[in-house]
């Protein structure tokens, strides 16, 4: 607090001592130096009371030196003043160090707090990701359930379609070709004709209904077959025309044209002996093959 005043005071006494042409005692020289260090150090701000006390001690020593010269009393006063100045300096340093320690610990505490907050944020983020993954898995599970339900529904519809068709046609499940619906040629066409008989349309209506109602994606192949009577080329051409006729009719009943193809096999694929009338009747046929839907 009185650092400037005290420093001036020291200098003033130093001047007086110089005029007196008397060498100051070593303790006084040391006290002046100690006070100079203390007044420019931490004591000025950290422990001004101790510094003021040191200034008063030095002032007493300087006055004694000024009044009496280098006496034992002056040396004693200077000795004590030197200790007081060093005490103020050490006290200021101690308080400054304690302040630094407090600031360092506070900064550490803040860093720990920041670290803890960052950890908590990371934990929260991880928990959120876990929750999102859980939701995604739940959603995936629901999708799988829905897919299973759709598959079961499709299987039911396919079974129903097969049951519907079985009432008027032979329906067989071929592991390679798919579902094969066989309609007797005599039911669909007059001899050597490729126009549908009126009764045939009713049957094909039911086939078309089954194909549009229960399955809208499977590919359908209409195969025409004949017996061995007549020339092979003629029978091939006849079977092709009959297959085309059935295809056209199915398309007219609502089945997408890109789902249905027609092919004539003529006499090449008999299913019975052409030597008997019954066998030939069985060979004259149209097979509607519903190919299995490829797995997605």
């Amino acid at each position, binding site marked *: 607090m009185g650092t400037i005043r005290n420093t001036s005071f020291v200098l003033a006494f130093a001047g007086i001592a110089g005029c007196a042409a008397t060498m100051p005692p070593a303790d006084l020289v040391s006290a002046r130096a100690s006070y100079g260090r203390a007044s420019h150090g931490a004591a000025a701000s950290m422990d001004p009371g101790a510094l003021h*006390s040191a200034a*008063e*001690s030095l002032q*007493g020593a300087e006055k*004694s030196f000024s009044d009496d010269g280098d*006496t*034992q*009393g002056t040396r*004693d*006063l200077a*000795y*004590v003043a030197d*200790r*007081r100045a*060093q*005490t103020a300096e*050490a*006290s200021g*340093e*101690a*308080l400054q*160090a*304690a302040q*630094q*320690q407090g600031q*360092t*610990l506070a*900064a*550490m505490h803040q*860093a*720990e707090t920041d*670290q803890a907050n960052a950890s908590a944020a990371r934990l929260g983020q991880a928990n959120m990701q876990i929750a999102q993954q859980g939701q995604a898995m739940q959603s995936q599970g629901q999708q799988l359930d829905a897919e299973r339900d759709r598959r079961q529904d499709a299987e039911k519809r396919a079974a129903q379609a097969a049951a519907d068709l079985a009432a008027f046609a032979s329906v067989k499940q071929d592991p390679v070709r798919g579902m094969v619906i066989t309609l007797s040629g005599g039911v669909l066409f007059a001899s050597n004709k490729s126009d549908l008989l009126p009764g045939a349309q009713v049957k094909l209506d039911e086939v078309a209904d089954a194909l549009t109602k229960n399955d809208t994606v499977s590919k359908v192949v209409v195969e025409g077959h004949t017996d061995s009577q007549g020339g092979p080329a003629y029978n091939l051409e006849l079977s092709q025309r009959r297959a085309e006729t059935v295809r056209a009719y199915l398309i007219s009943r609502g089945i997408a044209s890109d789902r249905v193809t027609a092919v004539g096999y003529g006499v090449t694929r008999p299913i019975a002996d052409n030597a008997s009338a019954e066998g030939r009747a069985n060979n004259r046929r149209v097979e509607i093959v519903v190919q299995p839907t490829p797995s997605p």
Partner: protein
Amino acid sequence: MHRTLIPSIAAACFVAGCGASYPVPTQQLADTESAERSAAELGAANEPKAQLHLQLAQEQLTQAKVAIAGGDNGRASVLLTRARSDAELAIALTRAGTAKAAAQAAIDQANAQKATNSKQGGQ
């Protein structure tokens, strides 16, 4: 407390110079012994900078007691004042040493914490 220094020494010097009687500095002796004990208990003997001043305080305290025993109370008072200033300086230096060591330990701890945090941050 410190303000009594100048009159005390001046009076002691005056009395000693005139050869007049000077009362036994009983309270001053008790205060100085108390300061010396505090310095010793704080560990001044183990603090390099404080060690010398604790020793000086103890020596001058002993000399003061000899002076009192010899009836030289004025000189005893001066010696007690000097001894006490050394004891108080020893206390201040010991505290400063302890405080600086604690501050440095905190800095080291903070640096170790920073190093640990930076390692964790890098993983």
